[in-house]
């Protein structure tokens, strides 16, 4: 089995009476960016921690390359991970942090400098982490994950605290890493945040799987709609009724579901209806995401 395939099999975890993760099964493959999505508290972090051997599953298995994480000879060189709650000693420099963890993933000091440059922390590496912004800490976490140039990356909410420029940079960087053939798993509680980055999505809610597919298949669930503004709402309503379209007021105009802009435009033209705006609204993934995760609650 490919060393970089992450697999979760009938995974479950109970904390006392709370079922944090329940009967969860999915796989994450190399060469793609996979979004691991779910509302806060849906069990994402617990699942990631079980994949990394930090939390012991109550049921099922979480495997890296067909084996539990801890069974690999140098696990930190196989999977680079940046988890949300991972801390840094405020009195240690960024470089000091990396060099402390370097021996156990088999890299030297020069590589530590290299990854600092790679994540845009070059000169800040000699400063103490206590003075870092949240965004800089995110970058240092990413640098730590990249230390051993691992074939798989597992990043928990990596966009948190990054400025818009940083988010664009991260997006390109993750795409680049996946294009090199790596497995990239990125968790987020906001689909919009990773919508332009991911190829595949795994959606969980209340600890259970609610959806796993490519992003394109998820988008297909959303359908299309057309937004129309007209000075003659009554005329538009009559047109929709005549054609059997579902229309609803939205913003300052009307939203017509499951019909594209060209069809609405042609019909309005034929009916002599004046239009001021006619726009196809792309698939609203966030709506689908909320529907999927909401249905589970």
């Amino acid at each position: 089995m490919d060393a970089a395939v992450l697999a979760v099999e009938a995974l479950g975890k109970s904390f006392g009476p709370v079922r944090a993760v329940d009967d969860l099964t999915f796989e994450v493959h190399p060469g793609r960016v996979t979004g691991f999505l779910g509302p806060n508290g849906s069990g994402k972090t617990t699942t990631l921690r079980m994949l990394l051997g930090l939390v012991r599953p109550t049921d099922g298995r979480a495997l890296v390359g067909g084996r539990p994480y801890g069974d690999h000879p140098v696990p930190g060189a196989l999977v680079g991970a940046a988890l949300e709650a991972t801390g840094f000693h405020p009195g240690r420099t960024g470089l000091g942090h990396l060099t402390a963890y370097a021996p156990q993933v088999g890299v030297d000091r020069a590589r530590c400098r290299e990854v600092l440059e790679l994540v845009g922390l070059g000169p800040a590496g000699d400063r103490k982490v206590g003075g870092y912004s949240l965004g800089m800490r995110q970058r240092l976490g990413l640098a730590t994950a990249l230390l051993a140039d691992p074939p798989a990356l597992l990043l928990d909410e990596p966009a948190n605290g990054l400025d818009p420029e940083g988010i664009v940079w991260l997006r390109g960087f993750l795409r680049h890493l996946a294009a090199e053939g790596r497995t990239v798993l990125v968790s987020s509680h906001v689909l919009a945040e990773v919508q332009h980055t991911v190829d595949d999505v795994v959606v969980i809610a209340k600890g259970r799987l609610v959806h796993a597919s490519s992003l394109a298949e998820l988008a297909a669930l959303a359908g299309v709609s057309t937004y129309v503004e007209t000075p003659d709402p009554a005329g538009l309503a009559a047109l929709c009724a005549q054609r059997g379209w579902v229309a609803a007021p939205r913003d300052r105009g009307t939203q017509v579901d499951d019909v594209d802009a060209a069809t609405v435009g042609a019909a309005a033209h034929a009916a002599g209806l004046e239009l001021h705006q006619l726009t196809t609204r792309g698939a609203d993934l966030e709506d689908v995401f909320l529907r999927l995760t909401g249905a589970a609650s």
Partner: protein
Amino acid sequence: MSPTAPTLNRFGVALLAEWRKLTSTALWWVLGVGMAAYLAFMGAVLAFTFAAAPPSPDTPAITGVDAALAVLGTLNAIGYVFPLLVGTLLVTTEVRHRTLTQSLLVEPRRGVLLGAKLVVAAAVGLLYGVLGVVGLLATSAPVLELVGDGIFLTDPAVLRVLGLGILVTGLWAVLGAAFGAVVPNQVAAIVAVLAFTQFVEPIARLGLSAVDSLSGVAAFLPGAAADAVVGASLFGEISGGGGDLLPGWAGALVLLAYAAVLTVVGRWTTFARDVA
């Protein structure tokens, strides 16, 4: 097995990582310098006390090599809180600053992580022992040479006390790390270490030695066991001889037994839990 995975001596790299974690923050040298400075101060005070004490009819004056031994034997009794703290902090800082996650990502075998911490604790403890000796000698040697009968640095008994003092300082650091594994809450651990060393144990030793049937028990307290290793004690001097101490080898075994029990408890509590 991943074909490209490098093979590493896991315990070796864990030791290197622990050493780098320790030396990449200011704590280790601040505590080390603090220990040397404190012992330098106490060394001067004690050397003057022994060398310049007026003759008294009750207590015979401590002179000659005995004065040197009395001063240099205090390395453990006065300085042991420093290695105990550095050992404890070696474990508790990882919990306090949540770096334990990263440490377990690069070494999921928790026994290896804890074992490496114990070994590095021993190393830094021995280093603290040397720093403490340097501090003690820096002030007591000139005072005893000028005012007293000399420091007798080549005397086998003096060398033995210094060597055992360094050894027992190393043991204190190991005990500290093992204690940190049992009480990972940093504030609680520091308060417990200070309270035990400064109040609980001294009072317990006085109290137990006052009751005939319990006086043997006091020898098994960690401070008394450490005193036994060195064979000299400030407490012993004050209370008129350390007659209740164990033999030196037994004292070392008692300290190691404390460390072993705490390590096992820590391994199956703090180091067995989910890290969330």
